[in-house]
């Protein structure tokens, strides 16, 4: 044990700990802490480690050794966790522990490098033990991977969310008061329905729900119109419509809101035009429900489109042809066959819109005005003057319940009833063109919408190129210069622009997080698709669940969970990276699962029977075949890390400021020019990154690869 057990104030790279490994309480290694500092509670973990080492030397049969190893290492892990959570900064963390063991003189801070290594070693030994007993197909690598993925999800997704639950039940001093959560959740501010009678404002819970339902319905209708046009008409600009789907991925979520302000805001174009031509005084009508809804519709329609295009394409043309041979005309076929077949997909799209809406933070904070929703309310409870963590936790709990409720509803309603009719069998039918009425409806909805989206982005871009929007339309590059100025001086280049600091932090942290996201996601996907082990269903459920948890909730949860020992990382870059990784990992998992289910399972098995161990199989067989998915996960991990707001808004510090949070602060301060200039630069950067990668991947002729996979099977 050559590393300091506890976390260091000044970081591991300072080297100051080298001299204090034995003597100092702060810098001591695990053994030193036990022997010299009398921290007896650390000894079980270390003894377990030594025990396992001893076991591996004993000449005992394989299975018995596995059992012993698993038992000893498992006990070590449990005792490690017990001491880590049981003993905190001020001795025992709970009253009953003090009562049981007497007063604790000593204290301990967060775990450091030494403790982390010890924990990892114990977990690896545990998995080796289990593998020796024949679990996980007898493969130690698989066992280790499962343990690693499960532990990290437990620590960085499940534990923080559990912590929120706890926090909601605690009062300001950390005491447990179950009544408090009821009091917090029954406040009039949350549940009031006065807006319906016209005598005041509704509670934030209702606000959130109304908005989410409207957003879900709106995006579904719009998405369906787009999907029908692209798949079932001979509309000429289909390709252009598809480009729209890329936009929301690269756009920080509040940019639409900003653009709407430029058009409809107090000093926006519309208001100015009205004032100039009719003398109507400028209004603030864009701020509130209608503004947020509008922004969300623009932002999330592409997502619904992506969901629905798969659904519409999945309706088998043969079924429609069958309907037509049974004397049904085009419209009857559409109404009685095609639409009912799409129904599960429509429900899916609605719920996606619903979840996106309640999780959205950027648009409500920019456009909400008095119309508070849960995510903004949580933000103000944590960041604002109230500083009421309990209140924030209770609201986050409510938001979580809403999101999970929608998630479960989706699985219950849609899960078992997918009519997607794409199968291995050739389907020779031709899609039936849309009946006239439906076609006219789709076009009349979708086209103006698409035009407006383009306009919005155009204005958003132009907003960064004029002096002061609404007052002085002189073209200028001032905002860009202010943000991205580089000065040449005697000592070399100086990055003097206001945005550089947050820009580089964002890019660096995102670049660190993206490979980790892709790796962990694909590893989890590989385990879920290819390996059979106890708890597989639970693991799959856990990864999918974190999909549904709104970013705001994750952010708050991280603040609560990681600002006290044993894992004390609030305010560091580490917590932001971890947040990025575990927020975006489900995407990697999904991409991996989708790609992996197209690769014949017997390829893995062939490698195994050819003496390829699991890691070799991964490197030589699975990863080369998964390269497109891997690239996708990488890009997505990077882009999402750059554009995310809701989760990290609680985690940033002056030292580690991120681009999006920096922009949001500029917007809240009314400094639109700089914010817009910065956003445009970000969008351009992301677009360039995506295009570059698409070119690189496109060159690998995926069609041929698919043909090869088929060929080797045929």
């Amino acid at each position, binding site marked *: 044990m050559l590393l300091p057990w506890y976390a260091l104030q000044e970081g591991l790279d300072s080297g100051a700990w080298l001299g204090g490994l034995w003597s100092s309480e702060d810098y001591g290694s695990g053994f030193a802490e036990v022997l010299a500092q009398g921290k007896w509670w650390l000894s079980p973990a270390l003894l377990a480690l030594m025990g396992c080492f001893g076991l591996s030397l004993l000449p005992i049969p394989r299975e018995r050794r596995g059992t012993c190893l698993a038992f000893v290492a498992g006990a070590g892990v449990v005792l490690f966790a017990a001491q880590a959570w049981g003993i905190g900064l001020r001795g025992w963390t709970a009253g009953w522990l003090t009562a049981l063991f007497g007063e604790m003189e000593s204290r301990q801070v967060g775990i450091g490098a030494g403790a982390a290594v010890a924990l990892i070693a114990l977990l690896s030994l545990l998995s080796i033990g289990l593998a020796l007993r024949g679990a996980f197909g007898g493969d130690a690598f698989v066992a280790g991977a499962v343990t690693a993925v499960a532990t990290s999800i437990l620590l960085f997704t499940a534990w923080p969310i559990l912590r929120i639950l706890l926090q909601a039940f605690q009062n300001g001093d950390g005491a447990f008061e179950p009544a408090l959560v009821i009091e917090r959740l029954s406040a009039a501010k949350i549940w009031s329905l006065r807006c319906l009678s016209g005598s005041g404002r509704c509670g934030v819970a209702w606000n959130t729900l109304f908005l989410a339902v409207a957003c879900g319905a709106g995006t579904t209708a719009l998405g369906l119109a787009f999907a029908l046009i692209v798949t079932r008409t001979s509309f000429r600009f289909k390709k252009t419509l598809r480009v729209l789907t890329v936009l929301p991925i690269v756009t920080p979520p509040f940019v639409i809101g900003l653009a709407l302000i430029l058009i409809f805001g107090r000093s926006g174009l519309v208001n100015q035009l009205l004032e100039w031509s009719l003398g109507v005084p400028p209004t603030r009508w864009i701020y509130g429900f209608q503004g947020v809804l509008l922004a969300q519709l623009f932002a999330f329609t592409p997502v619904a489109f992506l969901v629905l295009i798969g659904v519409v394409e999945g309706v088998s043309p043969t079924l429609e042809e069958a309907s037509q041979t049974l004397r049904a005309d085009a419209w009857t076929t559409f109404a009685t066959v095609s639409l009912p077949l799409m129904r599960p997909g429509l429900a899916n799209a609605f719920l996606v819109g619903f979840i996106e809406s309640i999780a959205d933070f950027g648009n409500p904070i920019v456009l909400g005005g008095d119309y508070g929703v849960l995510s903004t309310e949580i933000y103000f409870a944590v960041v604002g003057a109230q500083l009421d963590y309990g209140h924030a936790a209770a609201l986050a709990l409510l938001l979580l319940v809403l999101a999970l409720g929608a998630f479960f509803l989706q699985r219950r309603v849609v899960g078992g009833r997918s009519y997607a009719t794409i199968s291995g069998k050739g389907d020779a039918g031709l899609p039936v063109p849309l009946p006239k009425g439906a076609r006219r409806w789709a076009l009349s909805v979708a086209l103006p919408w698409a035009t407006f989206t383009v306009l919005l982005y155009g204005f958003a871009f132009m907003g960064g190129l004029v002096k002061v929007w609404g007052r002085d339309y002189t073209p200028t590059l001032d905002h860009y210069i202010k943000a991205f100025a580089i000065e040449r001086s005697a000592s070399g280049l100086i990055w003097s622009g206001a945005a550089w600091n947050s820009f580089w932090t964002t890019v660096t942290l995102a670049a660190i997080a993206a490979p980790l996201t892709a790796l962990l996601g694909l590893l989890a996907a590989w385990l879920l698709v290819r390996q059979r082990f106890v708890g597989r269903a639970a693991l799959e459920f856990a990864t999918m669940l974190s999909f549904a948890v709104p970013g705001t909730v994750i952010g708050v949860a991280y603040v609560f969970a990681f600002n006290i020992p044993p894992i004390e990382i609030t305010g560091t870059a580490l917590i932001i990276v971890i947040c990025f990784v575990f927020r975006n990992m489900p995407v990697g998992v999904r991409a991996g699962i989708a790609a992996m289910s197209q690769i014949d399972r017997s390829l893995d098995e*062939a490698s195994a029977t050819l003496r390829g161990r699991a890691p070799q199989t991964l490197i030589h067989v699975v990863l080369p075949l998964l390269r497109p998915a891997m690239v996708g996960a990488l890009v997505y991990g990077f882009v999402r890390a750059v554009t995310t707001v809701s989760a990290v808004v609680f985690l940033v510090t002056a030292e580690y400021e991120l681009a999006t949070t920096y922009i949001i602060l500029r917007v809240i301060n009314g400094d639109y020019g700089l914010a817009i200039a910065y956003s445009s630069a970000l969008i351009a950067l992301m677009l360039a990154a995506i295009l570059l990668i698409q070119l690189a991947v496109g060159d690998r002729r995926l069609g041929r690869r698919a043909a*090869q996979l088929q060929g080797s099977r045929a």
Partner: protein
Amino acid sequence: MSVEFRDVVKRYGTTTAVSGISFTVETGSLVTLLGPSGCGKTTTLRMIAGLELPSEGRILIAGRDVTRLSATERDVSMVFQSYALFPHMSVLDNVCYGLRRSGHSKEAAAQQARAGLAQVGLAGYEGRQPSELSGGQQQRVAVARALVLKPSVLLFDEPLSNLDARLRRQMREDIRELQQALGLTVVYVTHDQQEAMAVSDRIIVMNVGRIEQEGTPRDLYERPATPFLARFMGESNPARAHLHRLDPQRLRVQLGPATIDIDNGTASDGEATVAVRPEAITVEAAPGPANALPGTVVKASYVGTHIEYSIETEAGTLFATCPQVDRPLAPGAAVALVLAPRGVIVVESR
């Protein structure tokens, strides 16, 4: 003994795929696991490979207990139904894969791989991609890839099911030839009874997770122990008959008005189910010989090499194949059926 199963059980959750089977495979022999789909034969094969671990019981390979070992740690290799050639590697790289993983140098691996490819008649194809080969060639690459590791047991999982009929016969002869020339121990899985009979030293017939019967191809065809086996190994007509023992070796089977004396030392007197092979029925114009079974033709289909008849008799509707195609009998014709003793099998007696 190369492979030994001792009371092996495999359960998935609550369903039992394999329920307590024991068998041994002698070194240098080709043993086939045969059965309808879902009978547990592929699960059994995968347990030999180590791709599935048994829920209960022991598995020994070459005398060593491998019950808990993963596929990688066992000295077996497998030819997959889909061939499972790595699509991103050349033919040579595919064959080298296992050699490289077991620690051979690049040159040594390539040399052995070339020899292996030559053995299956694919010298000169080293640089091709799997997608550039025909189905039969891919199959050979898969065999070479498994062969070069010189495993104690070579496993085949329905290796011919993706080939057309003509190629199938060719490949199964090649596999048998290679197995006998190299003295390989092979466990082979198929659901095709003819294929099994053509390649095997011994056949293990499985049904719903159990071993139904085990023996040489001739044993199983001529002396099926159960009605299932009589049905599964070739065509057969089940019929109720009366048995009467003539002496310790001979048995008289009374099938309606017809009597057939067969060799049988075990069945006892009384009612029993017998199986009649369609090729053992000679169809003659009525009235025919004295011990013949009278009947009426219901259906007649000409299939080239023979004519298939459905004939209604006192013992039930019998299916018969008749090699005389010159004078087909029309439906409604009265016929007399002569049953050859070797095609009448007692499968169940009470």
